[in-house]
């Protein structure tokens, strides 16, 4: 067994964390830990990173292309993407070691000190040598279904999993016997990267903590043959639909019928395939929304397509989801019918799929009776398959010694939602319970925070720097000062083992380029990115007076960091190199036009030379972050964030408006799962009060907040016991907003007018504190979704489970009590479905009402007393049901706390239509804002359960620690700069900036020395350049993209074609 060489200091206690699973959750956790200075092994069993998310086309409800936001590859160049380019081959974070095609074999030890045995399966292509030319796949005779495209297209046995996989390399799917005879790939490989004899090898690593991010397995509809999958060609799974609708899919996003490739005119979705049934009694949480998304995508792409979704409930339970669902239903005309279809037939003549379903079950329809059965034909039927535990869950659980729950997912606890049953092993994402991307990302950062707590002595230890455009450990040679020197350019032309040189006449390009102004030397290299090529490049740029470099090779997207690093090693600023793409943009796309390709190569090189002539060194600012954090809000979330940061060894200022810690948690007495929230509250409060690193400000509010990440300043105003006020000035690096939410009040359904009408929280109070009163109750009605008049309609997410929790407690105290729940949709997502089933088993009646026909509540005299009368139209029997309950409990919507808007204005943050803080991205950046260093936790984001608040709060702590633990933060780089002397103060940049960053500063003078000029904070600028293109005075320039760098030979091709075509 060989020990994997671990860079950096080797101490007795391990300073690494192992993450199992390279999907979106695993990648996010790895990045967080790496940023916090902890080394991370990212283990993935398949040959490339990305997981399920990489296979999705678009995300609900934003319709962002997942390609860009969701995978490491596509985060390229983003200044602050969710999964940043730090996992790309040439730009790997120095603290991340990626282990693909690797399996877990053994595991022993305890939290802080684990020994892990791994087995690495050979991919038979050496990623270090593979240049992605694809010649092996071209000659390979073995055809396989493409796993990435879910069998909708084919691949070769030796191929890449996707055009842009990470790691970016070819691999052999499986070696068959014929391979040894064939050996065509071995012969054709120009870099001898293929070794068909490679054997698996074993590794032992030493880690302090483990994070499980193993994701999920889509339900296999073969288990339900009645739905026709595999038997009827036009029945597909939702994952296959995702590939069809994806722009990186086999059809570039054109949805077509499998049987004949025709554009479908009618598409149906069947919900809950593999969820909410006898086999899988839980809700998969994501299918309602993704089916709506898929239908909306069809509507956008295919004119006049009809989309019909067959569903049980419409569970649109998160921020902006209800709005999205209503838009799909009302604006786009997507039809939702409530029923469960149990048989699917095919019309053999047309290939159409035949469904039978009851009429009168659409939204807001209340047709009496069972409804006539209608038969309908569809071109395509999509099975919205549910979420099953990951394929290797049982095996990995056995090796790790962790428990699985009754459904085969990882067992967790409500109050420690990221802990497995084994200390030091944490879980995130869908392996803990079915969940969507945003929650997976929160889980991942939260699990990283838990690992940081164990590894706190290592926080910030493995330093790295972002002072350059790529990530680096410090120690580069001193940079040469070149400002006084005239440009002297070296050009390197890479032949890419024939990939470029077989098409482009590199000698002709070299001859042409040598005559260009300021060019000192031109050299053709066989392979610039290989060791010999790199060494030669360093010689080229260190010899003589050369101070700039142009490389004609492949894409800057994959290889620029490598060449920028070489520049740094040669003592030059990394912004003085220019990459010209002669491979993807030239040789590969013009193989049959060598003259044209050579001509184009000359022109591109000429433009590169012109551009690099005007390139200037760029330096980032260094900032030592203040080692303190501010947390606003002393409820469950605020306390959890504060404790996690303080436990890691950093100071926390915790500000609470009221005179007591605890927030809403103070009024929660029991949970559906049976845990005791009051115990959690006492524990948290005691730990806060006793923590030496936490300064608590009660009866206090933040009245001023300025600055940017690493250097924020705030004023905290506290009310003293005698009614006077005291102000504290603090400095901090990061701030977490945990201001929470409130159960709404109102006067609906006689609330506040009759003592028998209460809010659900008051019902809980009775059940907890007056059990004898509860035991006497004979009839209770509960109404769900009670919203304040005129507000935005949204699902408050937690009320259904909360109501059901009270129903179960009531049924326990008074088993004969008639309990009726009037609802629109029952939102018991995930494993909470269990309590819904249990409530029904105990005899609670669930009666659905519609928006247009809500229940009526009135008082009617019954002799001396007034009876409380609730009536509702039951739509299956078509009868009006009338109840006279002892109590009527209302589930009021959860609103943001009243100061949210004020705080948002002070910090310059946006609000969602519902009035909650609006994060930077609903899916990929669920707790961040456009500005670094400001985080969002708990119900200030959206209504959440206790376990969700804890996860979110830990995620904020984890992300905060990535800034707090860093020796230095680098700011700026490729950002926009205002030349004050040209600024007319027209405010155009302020109106144009997508991120509201430019501001007018009265300490700057504009044109004519008039007071006031625009200023762009380099710590905040994203570098898109939109303002520079709009500024009427041309007063703003984007560094590295200055006008003179772009306006070089935009028009006429200056290389004469005839000169090259002689040959």
């Amino acid at each position: 067994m060989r020990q994997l060489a671990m860079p950096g200091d080797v101490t007795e206690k391990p300073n690494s964390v192992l993450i199992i699973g390279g999907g979106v959750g695993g990648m996010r956790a790895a990045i967080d830990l790496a940023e916090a200075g902890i080394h991370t092994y990212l283990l993935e069993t398949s040959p490339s990173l990305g997981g399920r998310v990489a296979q999705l086309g678009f995300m609900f409800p934003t319709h962002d292309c997942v390609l860009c936001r969701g995978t490491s590859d596509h985060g390229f160049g983003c200044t602050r993407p969710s999964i940043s380019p730090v996992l790309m081959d040439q730009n790997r974070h120095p603290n991340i070691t990626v282990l693909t095609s690797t399996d877990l074999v053994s595991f022993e030890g305890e939290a802080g000190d684990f020994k892990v045995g791994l087995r690495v399966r050979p991919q038979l292509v050496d990623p270090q040598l593979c240049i992605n030319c694809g010649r092996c796949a071209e000659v390979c005779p073995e055809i396989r279904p493409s796993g990435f495209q879910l069998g909708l297209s084919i691949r070769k046995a030796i191929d890449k999993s996707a055009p842009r996989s990470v790691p970016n390399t070819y691999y052999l799917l499986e070696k068959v016997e014929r391979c040894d005879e064939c050996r065509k790939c071995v012969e054709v490989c120009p870099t001898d990267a293929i070794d068909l004899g490679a054997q698996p090898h074993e590794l032992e690593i030493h880690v302090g903590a483990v994070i499980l991010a193993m994701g999920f397995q889509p339900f296999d509809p073969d288990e339900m043959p009645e739905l026709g999958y595999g038997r009827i060609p036009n029945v597909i799974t939702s994952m296959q639909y995702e590939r069809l609708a994806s722009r990186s899919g086999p059809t570039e996003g054109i949805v077509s019928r499998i049987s004949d490739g025709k554009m479908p005119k009618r598409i149906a979705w069947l919900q809950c395939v593999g969820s909410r049934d006898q086999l899988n009694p839980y809700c998969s949480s994501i299918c309602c929304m993704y089916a709506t998304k898929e239908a909306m995508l069809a509507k956008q792409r295919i004119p006049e397509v009809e989309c019909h979704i067959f569903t049980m409930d419409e569970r649109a339970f998160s921020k902006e989801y209800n709005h999205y669902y209503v838009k799909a239903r009302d604006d786009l005309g997507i039809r939702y019918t409530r029923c469960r279809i149990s048989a699917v037939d095919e019309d053999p003549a047309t290939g159409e799929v035949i469904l039978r379903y009851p009429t009168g079950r659409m939204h807001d329809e209340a047709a009496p009776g069972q409804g006539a059965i209608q038969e309908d034909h569809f071109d395509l039927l999509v099975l919205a398959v549910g979420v099953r535990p990951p394929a290797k869950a049982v095996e990995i659980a056995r090796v790790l010694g962790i428990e699985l729950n009754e459904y085969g997912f990882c067992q967790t606890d409500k109050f420690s939602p990221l802990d497995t049953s084994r200390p030091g092993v944490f879980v995130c994402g869908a392996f803990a319970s079915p969940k969507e991307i945003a929650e997976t990302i929160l889980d991942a950062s939260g699990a990283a925070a838990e690992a940081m707590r164990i590894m706190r002595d290592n926080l910030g230890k493995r330093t790295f720097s972002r002072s350059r455009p790529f990530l680096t450990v410090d120690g580069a040679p001193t940079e040469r000062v070149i400002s006084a020197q005239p440009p002297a350019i070296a050009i390197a032309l890479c032949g890419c083992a024939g990939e470029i040189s077989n098409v482009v006449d590199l000698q002709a390009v070299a001859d042409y380029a040598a005559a260009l102004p300021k060019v000192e030397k031109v050299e053709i290299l066989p392979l610039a990115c290989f060791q010999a090529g790199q060494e030669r490049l360093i010689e080229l740029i260190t010899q003589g007076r050369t101070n700039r470099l142009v490389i004609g090779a492949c894409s800057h997207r994959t290889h620029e960091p490598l060449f920028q690093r070489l520049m740094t090693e040669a003592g030059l600023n990394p912004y003085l190199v220019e990459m010209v793409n002669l491979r993807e943009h030239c040789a590969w796309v013009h193989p049959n036009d060598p003259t044209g390709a050579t001509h184009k190569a000359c022109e591109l090189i000429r433009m590169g030379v012109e551009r690099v002539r005007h390139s200037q060194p760029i330096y980032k600012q260094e900032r030592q972050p203040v080692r303190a954090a501010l947390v606003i809000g002393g409820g469950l979330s605020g306390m959890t964030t504060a404790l996690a940061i303080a436990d890691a060894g950093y100071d926390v200022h915790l500000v609470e408006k009221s005179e007591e810690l605890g927030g809403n948690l103070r009024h929660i007495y029991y949970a559906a799962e049976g845990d005791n929230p009051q115990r959690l509250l006492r524990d948290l409060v005691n730990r806060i009060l006793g923590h030496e690193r936490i300064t608590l400000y009660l009866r206090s509010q933040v009245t001023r907040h300025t600055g940017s990440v690493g250097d924020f300043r705030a004023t905290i105003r506290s009310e003293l016991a005698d009614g006077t006020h005291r102000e504290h000035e603090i400095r901090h690096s990061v701030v977490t907003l945990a201001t929470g939410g409130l159960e709404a009040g109102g006067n609906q359904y006689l609330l506040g007018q009759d003592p028998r009408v209460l809010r659900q929280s008051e019902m809980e109070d009775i059940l907890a504190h007056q059990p004898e009163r509860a035991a006497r109750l004979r009839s209770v009605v509960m109404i769900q979704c009670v919203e304040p008049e005129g507000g935005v309609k949204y699902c408050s997410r937690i009320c259904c489970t909360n109501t059901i929790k009270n129903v179960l407690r009531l049924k326990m105290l008074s088993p004969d009590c008639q309990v009726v729940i009037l609802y629109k949709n029952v939102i018991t997502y995930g494993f909470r479905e269990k309590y819904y089933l249990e409530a029904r088993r105990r005899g609670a009646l669930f009666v659905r009402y519609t928006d247009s026909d809500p229940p009526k509540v009135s008082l009617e005299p019954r002799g001396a007393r007034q009876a409380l009368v609730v009536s509702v139209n039951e739509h299956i029997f078509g009868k009006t049901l009338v109840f006279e309950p002892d109590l009527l409990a209302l589930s009021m919507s959860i609103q943001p706390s009243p100061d949210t808007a004020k705080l948002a204005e002070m910090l310059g943050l946006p609000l969602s239509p519902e009035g909650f803080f609006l994060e930077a991205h609903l899916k990929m950046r669920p707790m961040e804002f456009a500005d670094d260093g400001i985080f969002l936790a708990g119900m200030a984001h959206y209504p959440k359960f206790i376990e969700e608040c804890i996860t979110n709060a830990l995620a904020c702590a984890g992300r905060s620690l990535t800034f707090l633990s860093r020796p230095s933060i680098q700011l700026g780089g490729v950002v926009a700069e205002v030349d004050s002397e040209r600024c007319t103060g027209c405010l155009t940049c302020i109106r144009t900036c997508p991120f509201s960053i430019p501001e007018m500063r009265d300490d700057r003078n504009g044109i004519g020395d008039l007071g006031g000029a625009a200023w762009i904070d380099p710590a905040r600028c994203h570098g898109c350049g939109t303002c520079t293109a709009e500024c009427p005075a041309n007063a703003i320039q984007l560094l590295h993209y200055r006008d003179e760098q772009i306006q070089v030979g935009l028009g006429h091709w200056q290389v004469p074609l005839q000169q090259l075509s002689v040959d």
Partner: protein
Amino acid sequence: MTPSNDFIPEITIFTCIYCGYMAADTAGSLRLEYPSNIKIVRLPCTGKTDIQYLLNAFEEGADGVYIVACSLGNCHHEHGNERGLARMKRTREILERIGLEPERLDMFFVSGGMGATFAKVAHEMNERIQQLGPNPLKQAPPAPSPPQPPPAPS
């Protein structure tokens, strides 16, 4: 002689470094052929497309110019591509006013995975410009000597 016979247009395209450039890379990875007479100028975002750049390209003799951006609604900088689109439209108005066909300028929205669309657009624009003929602003081709450097930055 009709212009489409041996007239090879000179086309400049502007892409963002996200989807636009990536789509070109994908076309390369998939070996999708398109005419070699287009050259890519890369910008951080198509919101950086200055009207001046587009006009300069025509003034300097480009027969056709187009912009390849992220899909609408999917810009990495929220709505940079919408800004770029607005400027493209404004530039078309200017072209029309000075007597150049506005169809010489266009904008396309692709995702990074859409290599085939990138190649298709390249074919389409090439054919369109062939139909329109050479840019009348183009001067006679210069003598085969290295180009004159533009003025040094101030």
